[in-house]
């Protein structure tokens, strides 16, 4: 019983991290048709920038702010000057964002070195809670809380505000939305930047338990892609459910079948694809 509780809990905290990553990736494609393989680079860069800020100032909150701001700016630059020119041209997007993935990955290797690093936890969340035999690190509670908060915020924003309505309209029919006189290019840039910022947030927040190392960008990207495939492109709800599925499967897979952990994630993905090729909440 203890085993199941602890694994479920760990799975949930990883799932929330995945949600932060997948939300931006999914909405960027759903809204503006951009498949951004450099999305994992935002995680990597966010984690490394956060690490540097924590090491110099010892302030976790400042690390989050700096990493999020810097990566959001990078996202704006990438979207406005590069990706926007290749709307609906997926092949060009793949090669372009792959180029960025390489460039950012190698620059990070150059700056921060090749050793895996773990970000220190904020002192506020050093402690663990104990429920009978189950020990729960408070930091993971914080991550779950943060993920739920972001999910709730995004959901409220998308469903209850007028900008959210515009975004939903844009996912459904971009041309028509533009035809109604809405400045979609500006909106796209903002949404893209928010997605990048969330990935950077995931980098700093995930740093203390996932860590950061060369290659983390690609590994994280794969997880986020599987989440998006399972959940369906362009759907926040899909990203949330997909994150839960992948986060829990990954944790139980690693705990129960260490040699075939990725397979336990893949088999359900294949099943879902066979039943619903566009994912659980995607549109055909």
């Amino acid at each position: 019983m203890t085993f199941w509780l602890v694994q479920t809990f760990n799975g949930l905290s990883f799932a929330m991290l995945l949600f932060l990553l997948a939300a931006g990736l999914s909405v960027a494609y759903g809204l503006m048709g951009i498949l951004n393989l450099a999305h994992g680079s935002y995680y990597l860069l966010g984690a490394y920038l956060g690490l540097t800020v924590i090491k110099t100032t010892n302030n976790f909150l400042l690390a989050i702010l700096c990493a999020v701001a810097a990566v959001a700016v990078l996202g704006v630059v990438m979207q406005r000057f590069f990706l926007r020119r290749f709307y609906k041209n997926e092949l060009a997007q793949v090669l372009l964002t792959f180029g960025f993935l390489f460039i950012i990955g190698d620059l990070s290797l150059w700056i921060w070195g090749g050793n895996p690093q773990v970000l220190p936890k904020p002192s506020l969340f050093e402690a663990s809670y104990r429920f009978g035999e189950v020990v729960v690190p408070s930091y993971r509670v914080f991550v779950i809380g943060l993920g739920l908060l972001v999910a709730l915020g995004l959901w409220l924003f998308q469903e209850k505000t007028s900008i959210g309505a515009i975004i939903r309209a844009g996912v459904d029919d971009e041309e028509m939305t533009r035809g109604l006189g809405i400045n979609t290019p500006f909106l796209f840039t903002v949404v893209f930047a928010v997605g990048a910022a969330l990935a950077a947030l995931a980098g700093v927040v995930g740093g203390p338990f996932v860590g950061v190392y060369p290659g983390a960008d690609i590994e994280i990207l794969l997880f986020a892609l599987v989440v998006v495939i399972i959940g369906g492109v362009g759907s926040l709800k899909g990203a949330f459910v997909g994150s839960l599925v992948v986060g829990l499967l990954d944790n139980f897979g690693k705990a129960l079948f260490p040699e075939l952990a990725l397979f336990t994630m893949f088999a359900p993905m294949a099943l879902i694809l066979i039943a619903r090729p566009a994912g659980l909440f995607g549109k055909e």
Partner: protein
Amino acid sequence: MMMRSPGIAAALALLVVLVLLPLVLPKYYVDLVTQVMIYAIFAMSLDILLGYTGLPSLGHAASFGISAYTVGLVSLKVTSLFFVVMGAALGVSLALSALLAVLAMRSRGVYFLMITLALAQLLWGVAFQWRSLTGGDDGLTGIRRPSLGVSVSFADAANFYYLVLVFFVLVVVVLSVLVRSPFGNALRGIRESESRMASLGYNVWLYKFLAFVIAGTVGGVAGMLAAYHIGYVSPADLGILLSAKVMLMVILGGAGTLIGPALGAALVVLLENFVSAQTERWTLILGAIYVCVVLFAPHGILGTFKLKPRQAAET
């Protein structure tokens, strides 16, 4: 026909050059050209999918890697007899690509990209984690060059070069015939308009499936030769980096032709060898190449210098 005879003459001239190369080149360069031919086979195989059928697979390394692993496992644990190993390697990559095709072809467009990527990356994960079978991230080492049961030793660089050349020529001939056949025309038709081909009575699914399986099997040829060439297989042979690299080769040279991908493969392999010798920052430069190709040569070298008016008219 007017177009084809000079093409055939050029191809024969190139073949003569390739046959004579080991007689004049030092061993290092013979090895390098061997590597170029292997990746040219690989890039041409992807182009059947990407350039001719319009199916952008981002997991093409799956067929390459699974074949390389089969070579490693069979030749290390069962037999080194070439025809047995080859049969196993190509059989496995054929079966795998049939399976991947069935899964991936339920989707299209960007989903196809993501799913092929995820499926290949999954195999990467299995190779990485299933240490008892695959050796994990250490891979399988000590794969000997094939034995044909004759006295020729393929440990010799020039002899192995000729073995690869035979496969290279075979693949070029088979794929050239294929893309000029009615089958090849049907693939191009599917690339341009799937619905039109379907309404003309073509079984689009079957054509796409066959294109996928052919591409995967030829990709398996490349993986098999690569495993023999370097004597080593690792999860990287299945990974996304290789899948993206072969896609770059195709686009860089010019998708929808056979010469293009071969040219792209040659450029990337040669650049990688020379740049890596000079600096540790090859990845950075490779990244810049990706970005530059998209920005400045989206139709590849062939498209930019030769086919500009036609390509421009097509898009």
